[in-house]
C-alpha cells in the first residue's frame, strides 16, 4: 500500500489521522523531518509525520509540504 495519495498536486498521507505506526515509519525514513513546536505535537513517537512541522492538517489527514 502506498503511503501517499496525490490530491490536486498535493501529497496527502493515506493513513489519515490514526495510523501512528505508519506515520512514525515514514518519518524515520524522511530526511526532511523536523519536530514542530511543543504545543503542536500530537503523539508519543519522537519522530513521526504527525509531529512534523512540515505537515499541514486537513479535515481527514495531512498533506506533506516537502513532497
Amino acid at each position, binding site marked *: 500500500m502506498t503511503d501517499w495519495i496525490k490530491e490536486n498536486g498535493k501529497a496527502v498521507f493515506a493513513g489519515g489521522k490514526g495510523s*501512528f505506526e505508519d506515520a512514525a515509519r515514514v518519518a524515520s525514513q524522511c530526511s526532511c523531518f523536523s519536530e514542530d*513546536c*511543543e504545543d*503542536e505535537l500530537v503523539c*508519543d513517537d519522537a519522530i513521526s509525520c504527525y509531529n512534523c512541522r512540515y505537515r499541514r*492538517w486537513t479535515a481527514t489527514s495531512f498533506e506533506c509540504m516537502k513532497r
Partner: protein
Amino acid sequence: MKLFVCIDDTDNYDSIGTGELLENMMGEAAIKGLAKAGFTVRYQLFIHDDIPYTSHNSSMCCAAETNDRETFTEFCQKYLEENSAEGSDPGLCILTDDSSLDYSALIEFGKRAQCKVLTKEEAYKAAKEFGNGLHLSEHGGTGGGIIGALAGAALRAGKEEGRIKGKIQPLPNKPDWTTSEFASVFGVQRFIDEDGNEITDNLSIRFVHPTKLLYSKGLITGVIINENGQLMPKPKIKKNKEKKQ
C-alpha cells in the same frame, strides 16, 4: 487596564510558531515596561482547504495588563511588522478585558471561526459592531490573520475552552501529590476527570509524566485520569497509546 492580546498567521514552515512569537513580543513589552503578560491559550480554528493556514490553524491569545494601551498597541504593531515570517499574513487583535462588556456577538464570531470559513470583511464587521475597546489590524501579506486573531481574542473573552500553552514537568523525587498540593504549586484552579466532571475531593495522584493544563470555564484546569487504578494528571501526549489498545 486588562487586555486580551491575540495574533495569528505570523509564521511559515521554517520560522518560530505564532505562540512563541507572541511570548517573545510580550517578553519584550515587559522589558520595556509596557505590559505584563498572563498565560497563553491555544484555540483550534477550522481546518479547511479554503483557509490559508500554515499547518494547524490555531490561534494564540494571552491576557495582559498595561497602563498605556496606545503605546503598547503601537509596540505590538511594529513588533509584528518586524518579526513576522516572510510570506505570512499577520493579524493583531487587542481586546479590552472587562466583565461589564457584552462579548456575545464576538464570541459568536469566534465559535463560527471554529467551524466555518470566514472572511476579513466578516471580521471587520464584527469588530466594528463591538465598537470601542477592540483594536484589529493587518501587518503584511493578505492580512488574513485578523480573522484568527479576532476569533482567538473573542473565544478567550468568552472563557471558551482551549489548551494553555506550555507544559508542566514532574518534579524530581516527588511522584506523589494531592490535588490540593498540585493546585497550590502549579496554580491550578479546578480539576476535572476525562469526561469533564468536576473533581472536588482532595485526591492522591501520581505525577510522573509532563502534563498540559486547560483553560475551561475561565479557570486554569487540570485533567485527572485513572490509568489502571492510578490517578494522575493526564499525560501531555498519549494518543498513540490509546490507539494501540
